[in-house]
């Protein structure tokens, strides 16, 4: 099933008050929004509040939704604003840029061979859910990203929004989404690479 279509169908049911639509919606969006808010805000308590505030806003503004097929982007826009409101009360980090050069791996010419300094990634488990240490490392890597990169990576790679939807949520161009996503992934990659090397050295 096309996920965009199923979202649109769900929101139509929700607006029409069809039985089961509310439960389905809350079951689907609560975990998504909690995860998003947690990675954006960094605290479970804040994430719970942001999630609840977002969903309350969704019902409050549902009559203003013009394009049901863009429901997901619309919901995440509300969540983004709720996160900003929450964080305005705490520290507001200045915009930081990630430099591409620093994230690129270094290749060395070794005679006529090119070599790359890289960890052994084949040792990574397939199922991250089973590996809580790796999960924590990945979360820490994501949370350490400067905000403009973190926001893109979470929406694209974790919540599964398209490039276009992500651009809509964040009010930036699709090219900016692509550039920031690449840098965010490179930064997370190099964080994990570092982790794998030290983990490899330990065992």
């Amino acid at each position, binding site marked *: 099933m096309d996920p965009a279509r199923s979202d649109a169908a769900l929101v139509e049911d929700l607006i029409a008050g069809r039985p089961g639509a509310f439960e389905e919606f809350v079951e689907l969006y609560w975990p998504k929004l909690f995860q998003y808010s947690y990675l954006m805000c960094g605290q479970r308590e804040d994430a719970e509040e942001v999630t609840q505030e977002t969903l309350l806003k969704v019902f409050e503004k549902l009559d203003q939704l013009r394009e049901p097929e863009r429901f997901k982007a619309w919901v995440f826009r509300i969540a983004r604003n709720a996160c900003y409101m929450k964080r305005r009360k705490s520290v507001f980090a200045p915009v930081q840029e990630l430099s591409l050069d620093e994230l690129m791996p270094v290749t060395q010419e070794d005679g006529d061979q090119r070599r790359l300094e890289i960890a052994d990634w084949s040792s990574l488990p397939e199922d991250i859910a089973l590996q809580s240490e790796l999960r924590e490392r990945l979360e820490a890597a994501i949370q350490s990203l400067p905000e403009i990169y973190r926001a893109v990576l979470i929406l694209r790679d*974790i919540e599964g929004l398209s490039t276009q939807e992500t651009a809509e949520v964040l009010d930036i161009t699709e090219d900016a989404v692509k550039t920031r996503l690449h840098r965010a992934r490179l930064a997370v990659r190099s964080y994990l690479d570092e982790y794998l090397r030290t983990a490899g050295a330990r065992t």
Partner: protein
Amino acid sequence: MKLERCQDVFALLSQYLDHELPADLCDQIEAHIADCPPCVAFLESLRKTVELCRKLQAGGVPAAARDEHRRALQEAYQRFLREHGGCSDSSNS
């Protein structure tokens, strides 16, 4: 655009993984990595990074909203239906 160095390839690998590149760049990347183990290793590590992100259940996501939250949401939803809802479709259920 001509991809001559590994660094040129590295710069495009996210778009390559996301199938967002024009065909000619795709072909150039594939031609390059066919003959470049460092780029293959790097591409695999990036692919795995993205895969792990997709599977992440951050913060030990709770399965559902707590009861008091759910009740408040239910009320907000009922308010919406009273004020704006198309009750016509569900009146016979």
